[in-house]
Structures are given as structure tokens and as C-alpha cells.
């Protein structure tokens, strides 16, 4: 026979663990529902991205893929996560930091023909800190691997 006081304490601890467990399960479910609404080109290829609602896409602008429309602000470019590419169309003024090879985030929606129509394009500074030579070297490697 367990001491009633100890039994009570044990029950409380079990309840506490149960509560934390449920809370974690709910929060993890929230993660699963993709709280970010953020998808990579690969995920879009796999068909994970929503078809009917806006979301975000992130990736690097593929070198040489930028095509500007002659008489308007329209621009096409491809985004890559190194595995897959996704074509994006945007009409508007691109941010100053928008360059080929730069990581960007675009907000918009898929159209029926599989083109991502962006309503907004954001260029983010990247979070790497390295000397210029290293950056250059890294760029060369990437360039070469693309040529191969």
C-alpha cells in the first residue's frame, strides 16, 4: 500500500507529464501543417505545395536564367535549391540586392501551367561570413559544377 501523500504526488507528476506531452503533440502537429507556408523548388516538384493559396518559395536565382520583358517590368527567372528548379514570373521593381546566384524569397501563387507568379520578391543578405577570397573560391566551385 502506497503512502497516500506519495500516491497523490505521483499522480500529479503523471498529470504534468501527460499535459506537457499533449502540448508538445499539438505544437508538433502545428509544425506539420507547415506553419511557414514556405516551400522549396523540390517540394513544389513533389507536389507538396498548395495549388490554390499563396505561399512562399525560397532558393537561389539560377545564373543566366533571368529574362526581362522588353516593354514592361516583367521578369522571368529560375530558382534552385541545387536539386530542382522552379520558374518564377514577377512584374514590378526588383530589390537592389537581386542578382544572379543570390538567395531570394518570393511570395505568390502557382498558376495552372506550373509557373510561380510572384507578388513580391525579397532578397536576403546571406548569413555567411568569409573573406573575399573564400567567397570567390566557393563561387568558382559552384560555377564549375554547373558547367560539368
Amino acid at each position, binding site marked *: 500500500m502506497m503512502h497516500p501523500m506519495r500516491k497523490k504526488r505521483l499522480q500529479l507528476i503523471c498529470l504534468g507529464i501527460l499535459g506537457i506531452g499533449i502540448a508538445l503533440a499539438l505544437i508538433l502537429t502545428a509544425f506539420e501543417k507547415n506553419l511557414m507556408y514556405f516551400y522549396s523548388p523540390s517540394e513544389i516538384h513533389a507536389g507538396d505545395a498548395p495549388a490554390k493559396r499563396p505561399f512562399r518559395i525560397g532558393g537561389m536565382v539560377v545564373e543566366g536564367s533571368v529574362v526581362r520583358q522588353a516593354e514592361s517590368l516583367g521578369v522571368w527567372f529560375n530558382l534552385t535549391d541545387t536539386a530542382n528548379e522552379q520558374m518564377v514570373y514577377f512584374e514590378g521593381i526588383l530589390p537592389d540586392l537581386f542578382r544572379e546566384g543570390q538567395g531570394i524569397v518570393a511570395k505568390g501563387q502557382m498558376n495552372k501551367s506550373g509557373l510561380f507568379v510572384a507578388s513580391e520578391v525579397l532578397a536576403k543578405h546571406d548569413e555567411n*561570413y568569409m*573573406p*573575399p577570397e573564400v*567567397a570567390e573560391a566557393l563561387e568558382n566551385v559552384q560555377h564549375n559544377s554547373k558547367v560539368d
Partner: protein
Amino acid sequence: MFRFFYHYSSLRNFYFFSAKLTPFLIAVFLAFLIYSLYGALISAPADYQQGDSFRIIYVHVPSAWMSLLVYMAMGLSAVSVLVWRVKLAEITLGAIAPIGATFTLAALITGSIWGKPMWGTWWEWDARLTSELVLLFLYLGVIALLKAIDDRRTGARSASILCLIGIINIPIVHYSVEWWNTLHQGPTVSKFDSPSIHIDMLIPLLTMTVAFMLYFAIISLYRIRSAILVYDKETQWVKDLIKRNERGQI
């Protein structure tokens, strides 16, 4: 083991023990500081995009890390206050809260100075900067509660409870702010699988962090020791100490 902790958690023993420890800490701190300053300002190369302005990282990042570390230290003290009722922990909690708040403020200010060349504005609702701002308010809350309660034991215990609620809240705030931020600005895209910081830049950053930790240890020991004297001012050993001190000065 228990006896060891018991011995050093007695205020008087801690006072004398920490007095012996301090000069040693200062020496190690200076060594680390000088080495890291050399590394940070001279030997580390300039960044390929940001040039020399990236060097503020050596103040910003250690401050930001310390702001979290000090909160964790406060959390440990809070548990000791609430569970074991350790007097030394009560004193520690009150002594380190302002230091933690200062580190947080330093991280915010340097972040904003860094933001000027990087983003073009002094303040950007960047996820990390915003959660750092919330962290500052958590610190200020603990300090405000400590100041509002006259009785030091009740004050320390109340502040401990608030501090522990805060500890659970820190990851939640951090995560939700990040999520909110990406919703409005898009997450930072990093270059895949490439080293995010070069080794020549990393080593001074790590040693600078150690220097910050030692600085924190030294300053908090000073604050704890002066708080111990106030706490125990009615006891014989403090009275003896004051008497000896006066004689020494004459």
C-alpha cells in the same frame, strides 16, 4: 559532495573563497581579452560582402549569447531558491539580473548599429533582434519585481517564479517571433552546405565569448560579495571585517 556545496553556499565561506578566486579570474580574463581583440581586429580577414563593418560581430554575438546564458544562470538560481531555499542563490539572482539586462541591451544596440550598413535602417523587425527585445523585457520584469518587494526573501522567491515562467516562455517567444517574421519577410536563405563562418573569423569569436563569460563571472562575484555584506551586516563576521578594514586604513 553535499557537504562541499553546503560549505560554499554559506555566505561567509563564499565571500572569502570568491575573494581568493577573483584575481585569478581577472588574469585569465585579460589574457583571453587581449588575444581575442588581436584576433578580432587584426588577424581576422575582412568579410567579402560587408568589409570591416562585420567586426562588430565580436561584440554583438557574444553579448547575445551571454544574454541567454545569464538568463539560464538565473533559472538555475531560481530553482535553488524555490526548491532548496539557498540564500546564496537568492543573492545571486538579484545580483546577476542587471548584468544580464545589460548584455541584452548591448546586443540590441550593437545589432542596431550593425543593421545600419546591412539593412540600411537602425531597426529592422528581424526575428532575432525582436526576440532579444522581448528578452530585455523579461529581464526588466524580474528586476522590477525584485525592486517592488521590500522583503528580500519574498522578493527573491517571487522573482524566481517569474524567471522560471520566463524560461519556458523564451523558446516559445523565439519560435513565434521567427515564424511571424518569416511570414512577413521571408526566411534567410543560406548557401547550402557551405561553411557559414570562416575558421579564422570563428576562433576569435569563440575566445571572445570565453572572455565575456569570465567578465560576467568577475562582475557577478563583485556584486554578490557586496550583496553578501549587506545581507549579513548584523552578523559578527561582517562587523569584524569592517573593524579590521578600518584599522587597516588608519
